[in-house]
């Protein structure tokens, strides 16, 4: 049992991730959260669902995590007054999730910050897209988005507004800097520009269509999302995919990590005017993508994973290609790493820039790659090693410096580790013709979770089915929810020109956050 609390009954869930769930009462929410946090636990996700069709009201769902496993709490709320106790003082990362949950579903916390988050002006205030009786034709509004940014006053303070259209090939979002001279006093983020109604879209889809949509929540993490979605579906159905499918999923996930880390290391060179690094790393990334296309039919491995198994196989001849790729990348990245580390002008820009103290990272629940660069020793591939990671012994990469340099080092270390894993997967891959089990429909009134350590951090997908087994509610959760808030701290007291570098060292998703 992951936690003991008077009156709390937790039921183990089936599936690859070690998880428990239980219904709680209003009064128990804060004490349970506090006790999980005090023992080093974190909040992974917070969302709500409309259960009025089944005769009850709304339900708030909280996913907590500690060293034992995942704990999903369900808090029933009345249909007339869906109010729940604020948990943002216990888990600061909950602030934006609580605000977004109000925007989409109209369930409200009793805390302080009630500004809108994902809603700008696409739908009226007081109308809630994720309610089952939401009428899209009546929801349009001409009201202007009038967001109240926190003002910084004082002699010489001025604001710089950046976005939503940024000066590069990146996603939309808004950054409001309050600066004195070049020094940043405060950054406030404003997101929601890429909100395209993904959660609502799931509700009109079959299980198979939903897998494709899950793979497009954040394109750079398509494998992680597709796997998390499949894991959630398989948890409801109580099935386990064939062995070879699980090994191939891990191969795809590591290849996604390799490709993204290579790309980021190039960008991180470019952002300190070291275009040699960009050119070199992007040559390597392109070679990985071309191998993906040649071996698996898609450069980013989209739609390679679906509930029940995988849709592409690795041919026997492909093994040699992957082993040669490993050898080539190990050789080249080793050389480039030594160039990065010995180049004084690079290290001068990296060291101490965008510092996130381990204590702050722990308070804010920073996860994934950025968390590991600030001493947060957490990697789902290690802690909750589901098959095949239980046979791979993932070596976690951590650093305690918490600056851009540390996030670069963690990327290098993880890159080498992923190459080691790729070798091991290729050599352990047992032969089998069965790549998938039939899984087209889910049981009724089910609830399942999937958690996958993507290259950026932990990607979670929760699926609720209705009485007929259709997708009643799907909630994808990106690690960017955890890590965007810490960027506001990381930039403080740095100069404005270092923002692109600091931002890139996190490289968070807008689409995965905005949904």
């Amino acid at each position, binding site marked *: 049992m992951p936690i003991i609390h008077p009156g709390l009954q937790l039921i183990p869930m089936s599936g690859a991730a070690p998880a428990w769930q239980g219904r709680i009462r209003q009064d128990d929410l804060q004490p349970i959260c506090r006790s999980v946090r005090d023992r080093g636990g974190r909040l992974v996700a917070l969302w709500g669902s409309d259960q009025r069709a089944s005769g009850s009201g709304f339900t708030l769902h909280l996913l907590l995590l500690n060293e034992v496993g995942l704990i999903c709490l369900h808090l029933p709320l009345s249909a007339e007054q869906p109010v729940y106790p604020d948990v943002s003082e216990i888990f600061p990362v909950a602030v934006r999730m609580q605000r977004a949950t109000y925007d989409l579903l109209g369930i409200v916390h009793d805390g302080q910050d009630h500004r809108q988050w994902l809603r*700008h*002006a*696409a*739908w009226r205030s007081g109308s809630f*897209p994720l309610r089952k009786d*939401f009428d*899209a034709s009546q*929801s*349009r509004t001409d009201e202007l*988005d009038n967001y109240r940014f926190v003002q910084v006053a004082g002699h010489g303070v001025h604001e710089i507004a950046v976005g*939503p*259209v940024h*000066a*590069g*090939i*990146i*996603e*939309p979002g808004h950054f409001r800097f309050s600066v004195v001279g070049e020094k940043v006093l405060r950054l406030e983020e404003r997101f*929601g*520009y*890429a*909100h*395209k*109604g*993904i959660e*609502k*879209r799931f509700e009109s889809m079959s299980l198979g269509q939903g897998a*494709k*949509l899950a793979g*497009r*929540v*954040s*394109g*750079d993490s*398509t494998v992680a999302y597709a796997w998390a979605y499949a894991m959630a579906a398989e948890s409801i159905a109580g099935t386990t995919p064939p062995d070879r499918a699980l090994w191939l999923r891990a191969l795809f996930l590591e290849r996604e990590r390799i490709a993204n880390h290579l*790309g980021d290391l190039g960008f991180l060179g470019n952002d300190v005017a070291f275009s*040699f690094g960009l*050119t*070199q790393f*992007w*040559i390597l*990334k*392109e070679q990985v*993508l071309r191998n993906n296309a040649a071996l698996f039919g898609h*450069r*980013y491995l*989209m739609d390679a994973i679906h509930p029940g198994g995988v849709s592409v196989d690795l041919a026997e001849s492909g093994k040699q290609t992957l082993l040669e790729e490993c050898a080539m990348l190990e050789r080249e990245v080793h*050389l*480039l790493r*030594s*160039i990065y580390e*010995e180049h004084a002008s690079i290290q001068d820009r990296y060291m101490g820039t965008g510092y996130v103290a381990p204590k702050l990272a722990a308070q804010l629940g920073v996860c994934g790659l950025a968390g590991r660069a600030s001493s947060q020793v957490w990697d789902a591939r290690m802690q909750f090693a589901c098959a095949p990671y239980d046979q791979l012994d993932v070596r976690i990469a951590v650093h305690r410096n918490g600056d851009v340099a540390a996030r670069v080092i963690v990327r290098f270390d993880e890159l080498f580790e992923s190459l080691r894993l790729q070798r091991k997967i290729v050599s352990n891959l047992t032969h089998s013709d069965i790549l998938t089990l039939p899984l087209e429909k889910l049981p009724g009134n089910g609830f399942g979770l999937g958690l996958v350590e993507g290259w950026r951090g932990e990607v979670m997908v929760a699926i609720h089915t209705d009485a007929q087994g259709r997708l009643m509610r799907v909630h994808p959760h990106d690690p960017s929810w955890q890590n965007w808030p810490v960027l506001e701290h990381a930039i403080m007291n740095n100069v404005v020109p270092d923002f692109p570098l600091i931002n890139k060292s996190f490289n968070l*998703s*807008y*689409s995965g956050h*905005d949904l």
Partner: protein
Amino acid sequence: MYQIVKQIIKTGIKTEPAPQANEEMRIQPQVLQQEILDTFGHALNIRLVDAGSCNGCELEINAVNNAYYNLEGLGIKFVASPRHADMLMVTGPVSRHMEVALRRTFDAMPDPKLVVAIGDCAYDGGIFGESYATCGKVSNIIPVDVVVKGCPPTPVAIMQGILAAMSHAVKE
């Protein structure tokens, strides 16, 4: 420094021959004045707006600048301001929250201007469709000259789309 120079020499030239323009990608002819087009020469500036994509298309748009495709070697580059741009490249279904920003970016560009919609979502809304949150395809919001389909389209397809928009503009 020695290592860097050695690596550059060892890497050599990776750039592959540029693809031909793909005329089939053009959906809407646009009349542009020849004398202004002449000023494009073989140089074209592109402003990208992600109007709500999943970021998959951005991965491939970034890739067209890698050494293999070397778009900048053709005189085509991405710029930071719409005021400097000849071409607007748009990805994603247009989210309602980006509708105003997209229109303003388009309006901020000097005439004549070209618009290339990148990806299945920009083509017809893709998997996200039209909803309370999205306006669907890019041509619902601004006029589009060329569409490049794919999820995401490959770098070669993106280059073919850019070249199709340019070659047509030059012929006019």
